[in-house]
């Protein structure tokens, strides 16, 4: 049973210079309790995919096509109020830079309190909130518990601290505490460790792993760092220029990538066990998202590109235990069938 099922998602931005196809036909499925890594370079459309799920794409962006099903419900047919009730409670999101993701003039505790209160007793009139009449001891205690659970020391005192009084790592812990406050069934984590240094990153990863094991939450982990995927995820989806290039179980994709782009991505990661190996540098750059060519998005940079690749972008073809958007995958599939 899958928690989230995205099919054929298209999210476009209408700009002065033309239409930017940030997400251009993405399929994405997340199973119960599964951690799915969404990997790609910046601008590949991975963040926009997550924002599209929650209906948070800002103008001039718009979901123009595709279906987003959460727990069997079509998210696009929900009213603003229904979607609001879902956000933060059933599906929550962890953002990249905790320093800007929190409101600088509200205490961290108060911001978590707002989330809990909104989903337990509903929104209040702004004046009620401004004068703090909505504040409850019970919610405060639960927020403190949540802060403690993510490993923030002396959470009672930190409850009244402002975001700038936290370190980056601690603040990201607080954000994670906020994301699991209402025990959601899905957390969308948008590069939550990119702004942190490596030792903190490892701590956050293991924290996440534990939370998922405890709560049974599914996670979409967006990253450009394939080593994080290896450490954390069950399945991986590789995106490039608004398209899914390859997907499958982490072990098989990382050990035996089918798509030339995935191969390049893996070879450009330094490895301790092969210190002498030369780092691979992919030629060229991500194509202009405006005036997208009809050819394979990766064809211009692909070392294995051939005639067909310049005719049309390939659909996803099944591989051994995943899928890849490459004619090579189709050809090996055809070969297998012949055998």
């Amino acid at each position, binding site marked *: 049973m899958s928690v989230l099922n995205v099919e054929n998602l298209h999210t476009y931005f209408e700009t002065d210079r033309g239409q930017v196809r940030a997400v251009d036909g993405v399929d994405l499925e997340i199973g119960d309790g599964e951690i799915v890594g969404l990997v790609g370079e910046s601008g590949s459309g991975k963040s926009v995919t997550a924002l599209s799920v929650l209906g948070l794409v800002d103008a001039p962006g718009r979901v123009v096509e595709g279906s987003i099903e959460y727990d069997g419900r079509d998210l696009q047919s929900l009213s603003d109020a229904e979607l609001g009730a879902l956000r933060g409670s059933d599906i929550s999101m962890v953002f990249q830079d905790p320093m800007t993701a929190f409101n600088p003039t509200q205490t961290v505790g108060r911001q978590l309190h707002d989330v809990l209160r909104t989903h337990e007793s509903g929104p209040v009139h702004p004046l009620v909130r401004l004068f703090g009449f909505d504040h409850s001891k019970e919610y405060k205690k639960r927020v403190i518990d949540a802060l403690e659970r993510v490993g923030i020391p002396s959470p009672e005192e930190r409850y009244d601290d402002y975001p*700038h009084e936290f370190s980056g790592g601690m603040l990201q812990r607080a954000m994670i505490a906020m994301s699991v406050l209402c025990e959601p069934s899905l957390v969308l984590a948008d590069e939550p460790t990119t702004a942190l240094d490596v030792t903190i990153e490892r701590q956050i990863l293991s924290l996440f792993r534990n939370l998922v094991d405890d709560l049974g939450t599914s996670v979409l982990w967006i990253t450009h760092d394939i080593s994080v995927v290896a450490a954390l995820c069950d399945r991986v989806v590789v995106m490039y220029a608004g398209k899914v290039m390859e997907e499958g179980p982490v072990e098989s994709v990382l050990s035996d990538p089918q798509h030339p782009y995935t191969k390049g991505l893996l070879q450009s990661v330094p490895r301790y066990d092969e210190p002498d190996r030369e780092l691979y540098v992919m030629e060229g750059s991500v194509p202009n998202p405006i005036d997208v060519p009809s050819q394979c998005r990766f064809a211009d940079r692909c070392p294995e590109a051939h005639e067909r690749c310049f005719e049309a972008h390939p659909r996803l073809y099944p591989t051994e235990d995943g899928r890849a958007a490459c004619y090579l995958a189709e050809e090996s599939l055809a070969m297998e069938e012949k055998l």
Partner: protein
Amino acid sequence: MNDILQYIIKRLLWAVPVLLGASFVAFIMVHLAPGDPARLMLGERASAAQVAQLRMELGLNKPLYVQYAGFLGDAIQGDLGRSIRSQQPVTDLIVGRLPYTIQLAVASLVVSLAIALPTGILGALRKGRLTDHVSRVVALLGISMPNFWLGLILIVVVAVELSSRFGIDVFPLFGMTLVTEDPVEGIFSVMLPAFALGTALAALVMRMIRGGVLDEINQSYVRTARAYGISEDEITYVYVLKNAILPTITVVGLQLGYLIGGSVIIETVFGIPGIGQLAINSIFAQDFPVIQGIVLLVAAAFVASNLFVDVLYGMLDPRIRYGGENA
């Protein structure tokens, strides 16, 4: 809390030299004027003996720094000298006029905020729509209009027309009543002058608030709040508005100087017996001690209000306590 204390001390340390400088400027002004201050004060027809007598009384024969020290020492004790014309202590003259100017300035501030807050917020929330365009054009006109002219127009259009066409005489053409004497009359009599003085400030604050709200709306924390299902009303009126309005507090504080300076002119237009009218009358009467006293008092009040606003801002906005210089 320690941060706030440090911040306050820092601002106080800034205010002291500025106030000293301001007092020196007020002091030296009379001495910089062409001619002998005593002669200036007494007028052309005074005899040489009279002038010499006054020079002695004022201590004008002493070295400048001794005079300044004396002036400063007296000023700190609330003694600003005596008026040449009426012989009354300058402090008494000013204190007697102060309530009118304070009433006008406070009312203008209220008027300008009452206009600026809703229009600025609405303009930002409805950016690019009719409400926004109309309020921006009106704001531009408001900034471009001299306040004394607006005062004249208000007298013609509101006071005169209401009185002559409908027999409504609630807005006096001239003068002002203190609210402490008669609350109703006081409020009506201050409305037109306050509107004349407050419009330009309203326009300025409106622009700031509009810009501030637009800035804040695009901050990441708004997206976070939205992603966590916080209601749009709470996001707009609690999260965004607080952050957008805080920086405008400083601007409003700086504009208190405009209100005090502008009241000089508006008091002339509406015949209000405040500090401004006292200043103008003293100028035409060449009553320099009074002018000196007003300049010093206004500068002190201005510095003090800036200090107060800075400290208030520092306490309200947690970001500032770490910021330091950008306050």
